[in-house]
């Protein structure tokens, strides 16, 4: 969303159809996911996605704090998304701002849509997402990290939740916006997919798009999520697959 009075707008799409970092419109930034990155959490994951670095930890099912949130028929799922003060160019004032609270809410709701919470009545499943280095798409990176962390914690759920932002920049519908594209582009549309049902459990949008552009963007996002899904599954395989047993019993 071009901010008012902003200057030095970079060229977001070259005549050859290349983006600021040389990607094509439907290309993801490189993603690396490490499942079980922390020792003391029940489940954790570290996601390096382009220039984003996001850590997620899961605790629980455990006792509910504060107590009055406890539910008799299912676990409550609580999420705290937080950006470190040093994660952005200009120091971010620490603590809960409204943006973080909104993101925490939509992420918790996305997970409530897939976690089998009724298996753990009167408990809490707590998800903590810490953005250490930010370069657009941190809520999606956080969601991906948290999803792998939930799996790492052994929480039963319908599916993993790959997520990605699509948007519009330089007039084109593009996959996986980076900072310049987010700041100076025309629209930003983060989404999270349940791959097995093909349905979206997180969807937000800001900017301008026509109906046709939105339809293209949704399809591109779903395609992007399917790519990320494979990386997430591989991260879990890397952590949990056992090397084939050695032949001789040593």
């Amino acid at each position, binding site marked *: 969303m071009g901010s*008012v009075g902003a200057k030095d707008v970079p060229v977001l799409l070259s005549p050859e159809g290349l983006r600021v970092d040389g990607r094509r419109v439907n290309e993801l930034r490189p993603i690396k996911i490490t499942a079980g990155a922390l020792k003391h959490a029940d489940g954790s994951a570290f996601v390096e996605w382009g220039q984003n670095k996001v850590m997620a930890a899961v605790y629980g099912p455990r006792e509910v704090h504060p107590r009055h949130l406890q539910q008799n028929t299912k676990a409550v799922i609580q999420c705290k998304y937080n950006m470190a003060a040093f994660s952005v160019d200009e120091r971010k004032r620490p603590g809960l701002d*409204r943006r973080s609270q909104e993101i925490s809410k*939509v992420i918790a709701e996305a997970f*409530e849509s897939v976690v089998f919470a009724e298996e753990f009545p009167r408990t809490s499943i707590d998800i903590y997402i810490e953005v250490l280095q930010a370069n657009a798409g941190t809520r999606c990176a956080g969601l991906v990290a948290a999803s792998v962390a939930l799996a790492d914690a052994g929480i039963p759920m319908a599916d993993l939740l790959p997520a990605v932002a699509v948007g519009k920049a330089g007039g084109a519908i593009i996959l996986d916006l980076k900072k310049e594209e987010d700041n100076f582009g025309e629209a930003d*549309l983060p989404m999270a997919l349940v791959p097995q049902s*093909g*349905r979206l459990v997180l969807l937000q*949008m800001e900017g301008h798009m026509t109906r046709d552009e939105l339809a293209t963007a949704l*399809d591109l996002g*779903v395609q992007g999520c399917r790519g990320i899904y494979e990386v997430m599954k591989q991260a879990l395989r890397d952590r949990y697959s056992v090397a084939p047993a050695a032949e001789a019993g040593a």
Partner: protein
Amino acid sequence: MSEEVTAEILTTHVLDLAAHGKRLDDRGPDEYRKITVEPGFVTTADGSALVRIGDTAVLCGIKLEPGKPFADTPNAGVLTTNAELIPLSSPVFEPGPPQPGAIEVSRVVDRAIRAAETIDLTRLCVTPGEKSWVCYVDIHVLDHGGNLIDAAQLAALGALTHATMPAKRFGIAEADYPLEVVHYPVECTFVRLGEAIVVDPTFDEERAAQGRVTVATDETGRIVAMQKGLVGAFSPDDIKTTVERAFHHGERMRAIARGVGA
């Protein structure tokens, strides 16, 4: 506890009805409750509107004051949106700092107003880098009968449309003049009830909902903001359908907010 039990019985009932294409209040799946906009409800505000959608009532008041532009946008005024879900409006709201629900309402409304360029912020600049107007959009939910986002956005749009710049009071101009509204974004909210996706949910329908999605459109045919909320999921085709429905309803709601329709 009894409240929990009634809620559960009602939820089952709402979902049963939806499976047969019906709703608690006999509306069709694509039918809004009665919408009214009463501009100028609060005379101490520089602009205001009381919006009712069925038994939901939301009041928005605009205050315009001189202030300082942000350092990164020296040529633009400042717009801030805040929503209060006060305990007066519902047994489910408690006193205290804004809860995530209230923050979501204000951020979704803010996003639509900002992305649609509802007001041209550069027109709110008085002296670049030094002095500009700050436009406070304060939204108070008075009666929570569901679908707060649509009502809040409509109230904000109604209030902005009828706002006056208090230029004389602050010695910025000889006389007051109307705040110029450039675009007219409206939000349109749907919830999933089983396989049905219905517009303008009531409080009971929201409680039964398996997902909520809001689409903000403007008069030029742009989608300017979206928000999926609550627990639940939508297919991309569901989203495309709600976008079409949002454009359809948007036209009528815009006319009501501008005071040129019924």
